[in-house]
């Protein structure tokens, strides 16, 4: 690969000016107020602007990612990545997301994106959610059905059911949680590495369901661990589970880089 350092004369000033403008705007208004007026802004970039969204502390607010022109290298192939000749028309990550990616899914030139790492990494995480293979009861059959040929969860980026909690991202609580199983189940959750999410599948895990008045069941897993998505049904259809997992993907996308502290109980904001 041919490496060369460009001189400043090669660069048109337009892109640089845009970057500079964006930096000024970020410094002046670090919160969402400046971004609200931006016509390019997607609604999913502003979870805090939606009614009932989590309010974040000032130090947890995300700096908007800025794309810096590539000054480091150019591609040996003059066709690939635009030949490295033209400066990026894109200066912000959100524009990068909206760009036409028809060229074999590539995201254009290799540019440097200074941002909070979780802001980008969560995009990767949500498209490859690894659930934990831990069936508890009836819902586990439907969970397996969701993973096999007829309703293939793999299509939506939730593929390999991992048998070990140390390799899993999502805990799908599928089935009745009894008091005897509650301890081991909580240990499974605690063994999973962050970032991790949990989906309560079925009525038993959302509220107790048909065993609510039993002497030996936990009435909803949100009594012992945080829950991100509730999928009601006894049991829900596999499509229902897939819909719940897609809702989880949406949740991760909307709150990317902005995860508040976890707490036991439903993650519904105050006042809702």
């Amino acid at each position, binding site marked *: 690969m041919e490496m060369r350092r460009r001189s400043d004369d090669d660069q048109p000033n337009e892109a640089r000016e845009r970057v500079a403008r964006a930096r000024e705007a970020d410094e002046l208004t670090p919160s969402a107020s400046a971004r609200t007026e931006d016509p390019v802004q997607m609604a999913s970039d502003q979870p805090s602007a939606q009614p009932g969204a989590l309010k974040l502390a000032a130090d947890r607010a995300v700096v908007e990612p800025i794309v810096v022109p590539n000054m480091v290298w150019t591609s040996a192939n003059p066709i690939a990545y635009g030949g490295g000749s033209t400066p990026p028309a894109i200066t912000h990550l959100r524009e990068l997301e909206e760009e036409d990616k028809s060229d074999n899914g590539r995201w254009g030139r290799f540019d440097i994106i200074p941002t909070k790492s979780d802001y980008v990494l969560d995009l990767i995480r949500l498209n490859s959610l690894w659930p934990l293979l831990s069936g508890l009861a009836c819902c586990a059959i439907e969970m397996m059905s969701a993973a096999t040929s007829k309703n293939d969860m793999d299509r939506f980026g939730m593929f390999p059911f991992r048998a070990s909690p140390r390799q899993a991202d999502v805990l799908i609580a599928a089935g*009745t949680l009894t008091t*005897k199983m509650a301890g*081991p189940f909580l240990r499974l959750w605690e063994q999973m590495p962050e970032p991790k999410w949990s989906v309560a599948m079925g009525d038993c895990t959302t509220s107790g369901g048909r065993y609510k008045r*039993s002497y030996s069941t936990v009435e909803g897993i949100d009594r012992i661990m945080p829950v991100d998505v509730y999928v009601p049904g006894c049991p829900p259809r596999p499509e229902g589970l897939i819909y719940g997992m897609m809702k989880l993907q949406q949740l991760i996308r909307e709150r990317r880089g902005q995860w508040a502290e976890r707490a036991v109980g439903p993650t519904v904001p105050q006042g809702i």
Partner: protein
Amino acid sequence: MAQQTRVRSLDDPDVFVESPATIYDAVPPYPPRTEREAEFYHLRDGEMLINLGPQHPSTHGVLRVVLKIDGERVVDLDPVIGYLHRGVEKICENGTWHHAISNCDPLEYVASMFSEAMPVLACEKLLDLQVPRRAEYIRVLAWELNRIASHALFMGWLSLDLGGLTPILYGFIERDEIVEMLNALTGQRVLFNYLRIGGVNGDLNHDFMSRLGDWMSHAAEQVENQTKLINENEIFVGRTRGLGVVDRATALRMCATGPVLRATGIPYDIRRAHPYSVYNELEFDVPTREEGDSYARYLVHVDEIKQSIHIIDQVLHQMPDGTVMAKIPRWIRPRPGRAWVSIESPRGQYGAYVMSDGSDHPFRMRIRDPSFFNLSLVGHLMPGNLIADTMAIMASLDPVMGGIDK
């Protein structure tokens, strides 16, 4: 030994959980209560304990097994059950007879059409109720379809525990097809809640019949394809033939029923031995094998699928006209007394011993689940085998933890 302790959760210091040591150490936190426990938890030279479950993909639910191993060989094992104990029998006592149907549904969640039949048949026996013949035929149709769905999953799971991923995909294709069909009939995919005291909930409909017709046209062929994939597979045969052998005396002594018993050569099938519903009007064989090993159990399952297809074929030809519900009062009060009913579920004899005190709810309902008795054979089957083969043997017994723990 150490007392059982409770520690603060890592995630939330306000929540107390059992100490990790008491959960994940195989040794229980109390002194041995029986001679058997004292013997099992005393280790000789070279022996060690391994904890398997309650979360393990090959335990088919939340079963926990403590294995005592010497090298790669299993010396002894101690199954720990109760991780799915939901108190179904007690809940049934607190509701009416109608409530008991849906409460018994999740017992055998792979084939719940069988477990929900328990309060229905018991109550009908106490009421001396004559069920319309059309309803009986529809019940048989639903039971046999559900049996095929359950057996298709068994074939897939057995191969999955041996390391083959493909058969489970075929098994779920078959199962999903049948379950969608039953969904058109009952409105549910897993916990059907379809049988009613005195009949069934709703007649056959067009959606169900068209799906059934589609499926019947290729059902036999699909079974052939699936068996072609597995039957002669060298790895599959090598890891099932001659492993987990049960002899007849042990199977009878341990109350094993269903395919586990029939694989030892005893043709005991409740549908034939004590005919219920309209099974005495239908023609079918009771497939048996002589060997009693995992492979024989697998072959019995395959033959039963073929027999079930044969039964469904007859049911569709002999289906009488008429109503699907007997005329019964809405408020049911069976006579005081006791009743024992049993049916042939995919796993064996599913029975219930029910007491009624003349009120509108069951006084006591004791449920006999075949998985529990079949699973109790593991103590005889495992010792001497490799650790990896314990999964295959356990899968060939086809336990469902919902029924075992109730």
